[in-house]
Structure formats: C-alpha cells, structure tokens
C-alpha cells in the first residue's frame, strides 16, 4: 500500500483527471509554483521598501498610489487590484490581516505564510493586536498606536517598515536584503545591522 496521505492521493488524482481531460498540463502547474516560489516572492516588496527608504519622492508616491507603482514595474503574479502601503513610524505600528479568508498582496509578497491563514491569527490580531504582536516577537511600548488593516479582494495592504538603525551606509540593494516578508505584514520589527568589526 502507498504511504502517501489520503489528501496527497486525492490531489494527485485530481491533477491526473484534469490533465486527462485536457484542462491542464503538469507544466502549467509547475510554472505557477515556480512563479510564486521563486520569481514573485517577497523580494518585490523588499525592493519597494528599500527604494522608499533612500528616495523620499518615491516613498511619497508609494504611500499615496502604490497600485500605479506596482503596475508600472510590471511585477508578475497579478492579484493586486489595489495596493495600499501603510508606513510604520515610532508612533504608529501597522499590521495586516485578512479576517474573511486569506487575501494577500501576492505580487509584492509572494505566497502568504501558513499562519496568515490560521483562524487564530485572523481573529486575534483584530481583538488583541498588542498581545498577538508581542507573542510574535514585536513588543511595542504603550505609546505606540497599533493599526490593523483588513485586506479584501479589492484592497491589499503592505507595511512599509521602519528603516533599522545602523544602515546609513547601505545602498538600496543591500537594504532590500534586510527587509523580511514578516516586516511587510507588520508582525516583525527590523533590527539594526551589526557593523563588521564592531560586533563581537
């Protein structure tokens, strides 16, 4: 007998049937997976963030009309009907959720993490954001206001994280490497970099 899970077998059966019917090819499925896991990915979002950190004009544009920017850059993946970028500051911390299902800005962040679809995150981040963020490693002072943005089919949100300290000498490309997916969902605060030679 096979050791595969019943669900894995059902998925395999479905794919075989659809291929047999000529509705699908295995290559089309492979291409989608490659697109979302390699080419789309959170790197697109990270590049937007890094550029906003070094270019005030771009930042202004990103915060007022991110949709046009994404369209003009031609990111693959679609599904950004309207993208709104919200800026984290030392006074306001933004976090993103989809309480209804799992709407997510794929074109800039790739595939959503597993916990994003979890009912616990989806309900609790709205009810007790400070507590949930603390559990995820983001301890915020009581003076920091938290705003939670509920994504929908029409509007997807992305967070512009605070530029971490100690990064004055980094260029845009180096900055983009620091930006994590979670920081753009708003469940991580980027920490400063250790300057080589100074860190032990």
């Amino acid at each position, binding site marked *: *007998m*096979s*050791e*595969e*899970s*019943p*669900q*894995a*077998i*059902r*998925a*395999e*059966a*479905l*794919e*075989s*049937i*659809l291929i047999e*019917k000529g*509705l*699908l*090819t295995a290559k*089309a*499925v*492979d*291409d*989608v*997976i490659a697109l*979302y*896991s*390699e080419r789309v*990915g*959170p*790197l697109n979002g*990270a590049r937007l963030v890094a550029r906003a950190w070094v270019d005030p004009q771009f930042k202004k544009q990103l915060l007022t009309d991110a949709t046009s920017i994404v369209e003009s850059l031609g990111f693959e993946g679609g*599904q950004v009907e309207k993208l709104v970028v919200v800026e984290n500051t030392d006074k306001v911390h933004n976090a993103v959720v989809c309480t*209804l*299902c*799992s*709407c997510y800005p794929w074109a800039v962040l*790739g*595939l*959503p*993490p*597993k916990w994003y*679809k*979890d*009912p*616990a995150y989806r309900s609790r981040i709205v009810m007790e954001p400070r507590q949930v963020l603390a559990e995820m490693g983001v301890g915020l002072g009581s003076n920091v206001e938290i705003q939670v943005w509920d994504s929908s*089919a029409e509007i997807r949100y992305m967070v512009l994280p605070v530029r971490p300290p100690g990064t004055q000498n980094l260029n845009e490309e180096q900055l983009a*490497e620091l*930006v*994590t*997916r979670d920081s753009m969902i708003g469940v991580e605060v980027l920490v400063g970099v250790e300057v080589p030679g100074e860190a032990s």
Partner: protein
Amino acid sequence: MELKGLIAPPMANGDVVFDEPWQSRVFGMARALCEQGMFTWDEFREQLILQIGSFTDDGDYQYFIHFFDALTLLLEKKQLFSKDELVVLSEQLAARPHGHDHSH
C-alpha cells in the same frame, strides 16, 4: 522551521509556505485553471470563502483541504469534472505498491 529541506522553496526573504508538496500542486492547479479561463479568480475566491466560512472547529483547521474542496466544488459546478471520478481514481492510486513513483 518544520519540514525544512523537504520542499524548501528558494525564496529570498520568505520561508516554507507549503507543509506538503500536494498543497503546492493544488495551489498550482487552481491558478493554472484560472489562467486558462476555466473560471475567474473571483469565482474561486468566493467558493473558498464559503468553504472556510462553513468551518467551525478550530481544532483541525487545514487551509489547503478547504482550498482543495473549494476547487473540486467549483469544477463540479462548472461541469468540468465529477467527484465520482476522483473517488475511483483515488482508490486506484492508494492501492499502488509502496515506492512506485519516487521520481524526485
């Protein structure tokens, strides 16, 4: 990170998003069918919301099972496929000998 190395998609800033390979296949099927015009992504999303919305027990929530059910229900609605075929083929596949297709 659980299951690291088993599927380990090469993402620059992310981490593993699928627990098991079948989940990525199901996701890929849904997107590919949509791209080929079998249904719109909105239609799929609505079906998925119905599936997830009808789920009440938090104990065993598995997103991709809902995703799979939403896909098969939508395909049935579109008369592109029937669940009977799925049941028959699944039984056949489950009866294969161990180690039949380790191509990876």
